[in-house]
Structures are given as structure tokens and as C-alpha cells.
């Protein structure tokens, strides 16, 4: 029996006229995984979610959700979705909206009566559940949006900018909710600009740039800085920077630590052996990491550079073709 991915796309394309929103995106997300999709505005993050939900039609490629072709109405019963810039019907109260959606999901009246106050309590708006949505603040609407995405116990949850407009306390609560979902083995797909939060809760992260998936990996993979080590010696001991430099490695003092840059990973072993031979005691050794934000910016910059570099080549190719 083939392994069923929660989400799977293969060479997925989406074109809006001349604009290519997605360019051959291939991605798999396993059940129970919390997956973060990062990208600049207009990178195609929301388009990818919308294709998976059948809100937008794909141009080419394959997209599967819970083992079924994306867009099937019956599969959406097992999926929750918080869109970006959502607009709830203003004539509803928080309770009546969830009650309406609950009926669409086929939830029984008893289940709705039990679950709605429960989820509204979790997102912190239970006291206002009988007020009209038009009286809600942006943060409350966002909390309600999250509530409607998860209250029917879906297997896969898409959250497009879930912390948008939410204050720091609310953000922490949303993060806790996502951790709870993670414990419940739900698959969560998050689009967010809040990189710190993505870094804290996501198992894997992908970076989408101009419709192309430029990096996919675990948070630690993305934030790792290969070949950079922070070394700290016992108090009173001095790091032999000159000798290490003679071996051909760059060093830099960062506070009480020294950052050593090696070209090949095994070279760090030689440096450590040398320090030991000199009777120096190592008290701190860590492969240096960068924040997800830094990794994101670097990746995006690099992707932009590559893209700019490609452009003259593409233009040249096109000119040659025209000349032929």
C-alpha cells in the first residue's frame, strides 16, 4: 500500500495570464507535520493553498490532498482553512457563524453545541460569542478565523497568516494552540511572515520565491551555518587565533567566544586536536546557527541574484532564437 502523504504536489504550475504564480512546485508533507511556507508578498504562498483547496484551478501538474486530487468537496470536510484577509458575513455572531459552518461540515447539533463554546474559549472570545461579528476587533476576527478552521476536528489545517493583526499575547495563545494541534498529530500548513513563530513551531519549512520552491528542510537545516563554529575556552585561557590562521582558517572574536570558519567539516577536528595538544580546555563548542529570518533573507537574496543572473542569459537565448 503506498504511503499516503497529507499533502503532495508534483510540478505544480499556476499561470494568471502572463504571470506565473507557481513554477513547478513539488512538495510533500507528511501527516502530523507542522509545515511552514515562507515567501515574500506575491511569492505564490496563498495560491498554493488555494489550489490544494480547489479555490483556484491549477494550470498544470498534480496536487493531492489527503491522498485525493485537490479540490474535491468531500475531502474539504477533513480540512480546515483560515484565509488571509478573510471577511466573515457581518450579520453573524461568532457562535452563529460557527454553527452555520458546523452544519456545512455535517456536525450534529449536540456536537456543535459542545464544540463551539469550547473552541471559542480556547481562542479567547467566548465572552463575545453572541455579539455580531461587525463589532469584533481585527484580532478577534482573526481568533474567530482560527476557531472556524479547527473546530470541526480536521486532519489538515491551512493557516494563512494566522497571527496577522493579533497582539503578542494572542500570538502566544495561537502558538500554544498550534502546539496542541501538533500533539494531536494534526497536519498544519502555515503561511506566515512571523518567522520567529514559524521557527518555534514548525517541523519543516519551505521558502517560495517568485513561484519557485528555493529551499525545503527542517528549521535546524535551514538555520545551520555550515563550517562556522563557536569555541569557548576555560576562563583565563587565550584562543590561539594566529596559529589557527596559519592553518588557513579565519577566526573572529565574538564576546568570550571565538568563531572559527572552516572550509571542510572535518577540518574542525584538526583545530580541536591542536587546542588539546596546547593544553587548552574547551568549555563551549557549537556549530553556529542563524535565525530563520536571516536564513530567509539570505535565501531570498540569493534567489534574486540567481534570477537576475539568469535574465541576461535568457534574454540572450531569446535574441539568438529570434536571429535564427
Amino acid at each position, binding site marked *: 500500500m503506498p504511503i499516503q502523504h497529507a499533502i503532495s504536489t508534483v510540478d505544480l504550475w499556476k499561470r494568471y495570464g502572463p504571470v506565473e504564480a507557481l513554477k513547478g512546485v513539488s512538495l510533500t508533507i507528511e501527516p502530523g507535520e507542522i509545515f511552514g511556507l515562507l515567501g515574500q508578498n506575491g511569492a505564490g504562498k496563498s495560491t498554493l493553498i*488555494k489550489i490544494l483547496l480547489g*479555490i483556484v484551478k491549477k494550470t498544470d501538474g498534480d496536487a493531492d490532498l489527503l491522498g485525493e486530487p485537490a479540490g474535491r468537496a468531500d475531502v*474539504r*470536510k477533513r480540512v480546515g*482553512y483560515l484565509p488571509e484577509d*478573510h471577511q*466573515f*458575513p457581518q450579520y*453573524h455572531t461568532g457562535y452563529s457563524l460557527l454553527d452555520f459552518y458546523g452544519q456545512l*461540515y455535517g456536525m450534529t447539533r449536540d456536537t456543535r453545541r459542545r464544540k463551539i463554546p469550547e473552541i471559542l474559549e480556547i481562542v479567547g472570545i467566548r465572552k463575545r460569542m453572541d455579539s455580531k461579528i461587525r463589532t469584533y476587533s481585527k484580532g478577534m476576527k482573526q481568533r474567530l478565523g482560527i476557531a472556524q478552521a479547527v473546530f470541526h476536528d480536521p486532519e489538515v489545517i491551512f493557516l494563512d497568516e494566522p497571527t496577522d493583526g493579533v497582539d503578542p499575547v494572542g500570538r502566544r495563545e495561537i502558538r500554544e494552540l498550534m502546539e496542541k494541534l501538533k500533539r494531536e498529530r494534526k497536519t498544519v500548513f502555515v503561511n506566515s511572515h512571523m518567522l520567529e513563530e514559524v521557527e518555534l513551531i514548525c517541523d519543516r519549512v519551505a521558502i517560495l520565491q517568485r513561484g519557485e520552491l528555493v529551499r525545503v528542510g527542517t528549521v535546524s537545516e535551514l538555520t545551520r551555518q555550515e563550517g562556522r563554529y563557536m569555541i569557548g575556552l576555560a576562563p583565563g585561557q587565550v584562543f590561539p587565533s594566529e596559529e589557527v590562521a596559519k592553518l588557513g582558517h579565519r577566526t573572529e572574536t565574538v564576546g568570550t567566544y571565538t568563531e572559527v570558519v572552516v572550509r571542510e567539516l572535518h577540518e574542525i577536528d584538526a583545530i580541536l586536536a591542536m587546542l588539546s595538544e596546547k593544553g587548552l580546555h574547551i568549555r563551549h563548542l557549537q556549530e553556529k546557527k542563524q535565525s530563520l529570518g536571516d536564513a530567509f533573507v539570505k535565501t531570498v537574496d540569493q534567489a534574486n541574484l540567481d534570477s537576475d543572473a539568469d535574465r541576461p542569459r535568457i534574454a540572450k537565448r531569446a535574441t539568438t532564437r529570434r536571429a535564427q
Partner: protein
Amino acid sequence: MQFLAFLKDSFREARNGWVLQAMLVLAFLLVLFVASISFTPTNVETSVSSPLGLMNWSFRNNPNLAGVKLEVQNYKESNPREPWNSDYDFDFVVNANSPDQLKLLDENRQLPVSRARVERFIGQAVDVLKNVKVEKRDPLSPSEVRFRVTSQGTKAKDVTEWPHLPKILFAFEAPLFITPLRNGVYFIENYIVSGAGAWVILFISVVITSGFIPNMLQKGTVDLAISKPITRPVLLIYKFIGGLIFTLLLTAFTIGGAYLAIGLRTNMWNHNFLLSIPLIVAYFSILYVVSTLTAVLTRSAIVAILFTLIAWGIFFGVGKVNKGVLNREVAVAAQVANPGEAMQAPKPGEDVDLDGIISRIDPDAPLWGFIPKSTFGIVKAVYFVCPRTYQLDERLDQLIAEGILPEEDKKLIKLEKTVASWGEILGISFGFIACVLGLACWRFASRDS
């Protein structure tokens, strides 16, 4: 369950902003107005005296006829409790100040001062009396003319065919609208409620429901709706039915309320009148499907209203013109079949059928003077695909008439309204709804949110 959820949601949406409530208040006012109308059986003496009072008033302003008075005296009726089962006997008296005034009165051929003229006057004032006889009696003075008027039986079979005096807003008598009770009720049901009332209901429903689908298609809202486990065509059809339910509620409240009010006030329960509810909703569904398609294409409530009103006018116009064309063709066919009949002059009192006369004189004459005969084929082709709103309206008139009017009046209505069959009206109209709704569903399903 999903269907019920959408119905509830549509109701909630309609209730939002107090529009539904305002509409129900308006409908209640209409029902209250209908309930305020009462009918009192007229008395023959009053029916005769009322126009005489107007004449007497005019004599006062004429110096030559000042002091002249026309009146009813020695009035007797055999069955005062049931005027429609009564025989009548009274004196019709012309009182003047001098014999010269009587001469002057006699010179005016419009005034009822001779036996024949009194007979004609009574026939007009109380046309329901049978076997009316007018005899001249001996005057009590030289300046008086006296006639004895008798009648045996009436044309009214029961109280509902007897002339009644309507009273409006619980207080105001309307002597100019004296009519048999059945006709009065028919007027209220057909013209006030199913006519003017229905047009108002339809117009307001078009305006209010035009926002339902554009609201759902708003950016940020549509994504939420589509992400639920429901297909787009089903979603749109549910929203469409939701709009119909709004109108059904409003129509049922208005028609049902008017039906009860009329029934309780007059004891006349025209069950056919209740058929106005599904027929008005059917009429609205034709308009709403145009609104739905426009909304899907443009996402604009204003454009949806505009297109719906234009379509409403076109459907009505096409129905009307097609009826004119059909009448013309029938008249021309009759002319061809029986050429001698063409030159027959209309009989006195007969309604003049101008269209018929024109067609007999010139079969190729344009319809109403501006639609050339060469376009008749186009009119028929357009009519073939258009929903039958005009005919639906006519059928409704007919149904109401059949439920309330006496046989003779029913025949008149049927003669006047030679409308399409139910099969054609409903078949073509629902076919139109299915096609347009199908198109809207296809467009909604085939595009990105």
C-alpha cells in the same frame, strides 16, 4: 442539513439591517389597509337619491331652476333584511316652484322628468333591479311631476352580487365605487394586493436579494465559502433558493394576511387568491435568476439590480407585443375567413376593438402604429425563448377572477385574456431558469474563486 443551513443563513442575511423587518411592516400596512375596507349593502332609496342630490345641488346654482327638487317618496321594499330578494315600490317626484320650471326641466333631455327618462335613470342608478316599471301618477300640485316606480325581483342571486358601498380606512365612504361585493373583493385581490402590492414586493425583493450573491462572492468571503465541503454549483443554487425563500416569506405574509383580512371582513374566501403566493414567487424566480447570473459575472449588486430591471421590462414588453401580434393575426385570419364581417359597425355599447378594426382595414398595418409588421417574426422568435412573465401575470388575474367573479364576468375576463397554456408558461419559464442558473453555476465553477 447543508440546505437548511443555507436557508437559515439567507434568512439571517435578509434580517440583517432591518430590511426584512421594514418590508414586513410595509406588508402589514398593506394588509391593514385591506382590512380597513368594508362593504355595506346599498339601499335602493339611497342609490337613487345620491345622484338626485347632486342634481338638486346643481339646480340651486341655476337661477332659472332654483328651488327644483328631485326626490324619492313613499319608499317601500318587501324584504328590507335581504334587499337582493326584495320587490320595490316608490314614487319618483319632481318638485318645482312653477309649471314654467317644469317646462324648462323637460327641455333638458338629460334630466329624468319624463316616464322614459325616469326609467332609463333608474336602470342606470340601480341596474340590478328586474322588471322595473315606471308609471306616471297624478301630481299633488300643478308644479309637480310624480311617477310610480315598481320592480319585481333582482338580478342578484345573493348578497355577493348586490351592490355594496365600500368604506375605506374604517371611516371614509366611497360612493363613487359602489359595486357588487364580488367585484369589490376581486378589485382588492387582483389590483390592490396581487397587482400593486405584488409589484412592490417584486421590486423590493429584487433590490434586497441582489446583494446576496455579490456579498458571498466578495474577496475574503468567497474563499471561506468555497473551502467548505460543498461544491460551487450547489453553493450557488442554495443561495438562489435562499433568495426565493425571502420572497416567499414576504409574499406569503402579504397574500396570506390579505386573504384572512378579506375573508373575515366579507366572508368571501377566494382560495384561488392564495395561488398568488407560488405564482408571484415563480415570477420572482425568473427575475432572480437574471440577478444571479449578473452577480456571478460582475460581483456587483448595483449592476445586478440594473440588469434585472432591464430584463423585467424586456420580458414584459416582449409578452405584451407578442400578444398584440397574436391578436392581429387572429383578427386578420377572421377577416380572411369572413370578409363581409369586416365592414360591420360595432353594436351600441360594444367595446370597440381598435386593433381589430385597424387590422381589418389594413392587415399589414404596423402594430400600435410603430412596430412594423415585418418584425412580427422576430418578435415571435424572441418571445419563444423569453420567460412568460406577462402571461404569468395574466394567468394570475384569471385565477383570481375565476375564484370570485360571477359566471358572466368570468366569461368576460376569459374573452379578454386569451393567454398561453400553463404548460407553455411554466415549461418555458422554468426552462429559462434552468438554463440561466446552469450558466451561472458553470461560470462560478469554472473560474478561480
